[in-house]
């Protein structure tokens, strides 16, 4: 899937995560999290796993995590990619 337009998903509420995607000529991922000291590696892993699952090879991805569980990160990533992408 290719990111064709700007899109966002999620919120900045506790236990949620806010994801922005926009078209870009290469893949750029920025992650910040309120629990980055403890879980940055796991969040990073999940974000890249979802990008791979959807075949996203380029785009600017900005992630602002408010302590979301893995299943929430996956859901918000998928929503943002579907909203901004096309096959």
């Amino acid at each position, binding site marked *: 899937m290719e990111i064709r337009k700007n899109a966002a*998903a*999620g919120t900045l*509420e*506790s*236990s*949620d995560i806010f994801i922005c995607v926009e078209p870009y000529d290469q893949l750029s991922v920025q992650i910040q999290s309120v629990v980055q000291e403890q879980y940055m590696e796991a969040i990073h892993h999940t974000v890249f796993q979802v990008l791979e699952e959807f075949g996203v090879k380029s785009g600017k991805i900005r992630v602002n995590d408010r302590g*979301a*569980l*893995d*299943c*929430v990160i*996956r*859901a*918000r990533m*998928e*929503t943002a990619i*579907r*909203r901004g992408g096309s096959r």
Partner: protein
Amino acid sequence: MMRRTMLFLPGNAPNMLINGDVLGADSIIFDLEDAVAPDEKDAARILVRNTLKYQKPTACETIIRINPLDTQEWRADLEEVIPCRPDLIMPAKAGCGQDIKVVADYMAQIEEQAGIQVGSTGILPLVETVLGVEKAFEIASAHRRVAGLFLGGEDLTADLHCKRTKEGQEIFYARSRIVCAARACGLDAYDTPFTDVEDMQGLVKDSQLARSLGFSGKAVISPRHVETVNAVFSPAPEEIQYARDVVEAIEEGKRQGKGAVSLRGKMIDAPIVKRAMQILDMERQMMGGDFQ
């Protein structure tokens, strides 16, 4: 299946969805309808699907309220959640038996495609229109998946062109009609939520009224209401003791070869025994008996 309380949780609120099963309700309802803004429907169904897939509640039953059949959303709702095997689907604004058949047929298609047993997810129709109330029996008997009837008072009063009050006179007929229709099909009926989160006395009164009319449980929109509603719909200790005494008296009568048995000066007939068995069954479930 004991459903004293059924707690509505907004389908797009992760902090509520992931903690749903620790709030004490017998069932939680992940809401994809009214609690979700129109432009967030896609996000909510993906979030609910993932919650079911990776973080499925284990301490209570899961119900998904899907969007009404006159929208574009209900099919997509089912496509996302059915493969994750929720316990029940709650179609909003069920208006007739055909509505239930349409939902059930589509559920079967998805189940077949997903390779899961057809019929493994039930249906709990949400009756919240005047047409739905008048066709309650048709809805309850429309399909073997139907697990009960659920009354929605807010939309119903709008459809009735009247004001929703705490006393609930305006929905008295609908409540009775829903209970009769469900019971006629051997099913349970569940009452509409009490929407004033702060009025705990009003909640008790409304729950007691619902129980007295024959409802088996009630929806709640706040975790704060769970404990109170659970208490109202649970048998009291004296009811449990009386039920045990009834069963014991019946068994003693059988041992003695008696055709008629009395307890505390009153004859015990079949309905009393049936009610006693229902109360003991509820007690067993409350004590952590089999969940399903």
